[in-house]
């Protein structure tokens, strides 16, 4: 008996984890490129432009720079905690992806039926809340161990902020839980299938029990605070604290904090899409055209990249960009293939929603100024918490009124 036959679940899980972590890390790398590019254009700049056509090789250049920089450990740091903090931050923000379901179908891998997720657990939502509640340690301990007053202030600020907003975040999810009646993310998504009046999707934000608009807004705001993003990035406020909790971190340890922030942005976008926006369900009711929307969208993007690439300034760009465009177009055509078409719908719509939320994150960063610290705490406790409680009470009352 081979090792595979003895432990099929173990082997398949390792394969799924490896594939998903590779995809996630690549996605994070290009998310930094996308953010720099989008914010630059919002501010009438070019953004990364030199490394590769349209700066597409910038993430690679950044990665190499982080690897080859001197890894400087300042004097007087608490060595164990100083090294532990970036590992905690990155691993905790990556582990959330383990319970995200990407589609309804089971896939066959090595002759075994397995769900389209690393694991399908009954308490998926609670697992995510548990990991989120732990993720404060990376920032707080990093700030404390650095033996620097700015780092310490950043760490203190972020732990107080994350504890405060976590309460509103957890309470805003209660509305979804009441409507869905389960902790399983797969079942929460499945309950959101179908359409009202033939066109309005039955997502939780439009729920018939009680529309979770308020819950969504609270969740989104709290998620911005939990991921330490603008306008709640008090933990690394450059104007006040140099660079906040990661002032004393250099080289790859800094990169790990950086990747942790982007990984938690991605996972929070996944959770938002799943809880409030129907997960893998398409926003359009199925008819003759909708199954080919992925093909149309990818094909249009690919053709535009070819068109843009042929006019690019450098010879390198005139070769690379059309090839990239051809690859995207080919992917789009592949999505029209009957077998692939049915399979690709669910992951495509989930990823499209996640992309929209990631753009929202970047858009907000390019738009809003930072809160003052007392405003941040006042807003969290005096506005967000009562509104989250109100949402719970209203949802429960609406469901009770309908006799459920």
């Amino acid at each position, binding site marked *: 008996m081979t090792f595979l036959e003895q432990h099929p679940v173990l082997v398949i899980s390792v394969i799924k984890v490896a594939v998903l972590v590779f995809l996630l890390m690549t996605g994070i790398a290009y998310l930094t490129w996308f953010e720099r590019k989008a914010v630059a254009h919002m501010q009438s700049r070019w953004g990364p432009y030199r490394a590769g056509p349209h700066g597409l090789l910038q993430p690679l250049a950044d990665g190499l720079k982080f690897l080859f920089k001197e890894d400087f450990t300042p004097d007087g740091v*608490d060595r164990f*905690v100083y090294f532990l903090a970036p590992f905690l931050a990155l691993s905790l923000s990556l582990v959330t992806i383990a319970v995200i379901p990407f589609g309804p179908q089971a896939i066959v891998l090595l002759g075994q039926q397995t769900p389209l997720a690393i694991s399908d657990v*009954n308490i998926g939502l*609670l697992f995510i809340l548990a990991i989120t*509640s732990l993720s404060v340690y990376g920032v707080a*301990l990093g700030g*404390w161990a650095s033996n620097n007053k700015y780092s310490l202030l950043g760490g203190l600020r972020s732990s107080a902020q*994350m504890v405060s907003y976590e309460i509103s975040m957890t309470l805003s999810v209660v509305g979804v839980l009441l409507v869905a009646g389960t902790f399983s993310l797969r079942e929460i998504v499945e309950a959101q299938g179908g359409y009202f009046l033939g066109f309005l999707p039955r997502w939780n934000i439009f729920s018939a029990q009680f529309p979770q608009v308020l819950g969504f807004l609270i969740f989104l705001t709290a998620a911005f605070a939990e991921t330490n993003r603008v306008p709640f990035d008090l933990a690394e406020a450059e104007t006040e604290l140099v660079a906040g909790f990661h002032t004393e971190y250099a080289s790859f340890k800094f990169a790990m904090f950086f990747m942790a922030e982007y990984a938690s942005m991605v996972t929070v976008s996944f959770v938002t899409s799943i809880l409030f926006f129907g997960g893998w369900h398409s926003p359009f009711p199925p008819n003759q055209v909708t199954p080919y929307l992925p093909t149309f969208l990818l094909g249009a993007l690919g053709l535009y990249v070819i068109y843009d690439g042929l006019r690019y300034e450098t010879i390198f760009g005139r070769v690379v960009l059309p090839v990239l465009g051809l690859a995207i177009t080919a992917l789009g055509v592949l999505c029209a293939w009957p077998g692939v078409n049915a399979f690709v719908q669910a992951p495509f719509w989930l990823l499209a929603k996640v992309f929209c939320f990631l753009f929202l994150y970047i858009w907000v960063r390019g738009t809003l100024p930072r809160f003052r610290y007392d405003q941040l705490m006042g807003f969290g406790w005096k506005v967000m918490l009562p509104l989250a409680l109100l949402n719970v009470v209203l949802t429960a009352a609406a469901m009770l009124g309908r006799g459920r």
Partner: protein
Amino acid sequence: MNVELFLFFLFALMAVGGALSLILQRHPIHSALSLIVVMVALAALYLLQGAEFIAAVQIIVYAGAIMVLFVFVIMLLNAGEEERTAASRMARVVGVPVGIFLTALLAWGISGGASSQAATEAVVKPYDTKQLAVLLFREYVFPFELTSILILIAILGAVVLAKRES
């Protein structure tokens, strides 16, 4: 070797090791971190027993909320390493016999001296989340509400104490 048994010993060792480290560390932050390790290991042990909800709540409440406040206060006060004082030497004289006594008591309890069939069954019975909620909000709703009022009073007390200083 059975995977579940292996995981049980892994997390049990983690819990015991974390608890020892909690006592032996000199710096409060290191002790707090050891306590977090104990909490997470206990949550994993609950998960191995099939108590998913309890495991998640263990992490959210203890490791994620209470210990964050511990770490926050230690950071805020910038507490240094603990020092040996006359009182801590006294604690050693009293502590060792008391520790031995408690261990003996625990060992006697586990080995069956004080076991009753009913108590064991109530613990072993596996609950899923829904059953737990029904029990908590139907049968035990009065003690549950009483506990929340107790916690509310504690919060109000903390607010009153904090206000007086400013």
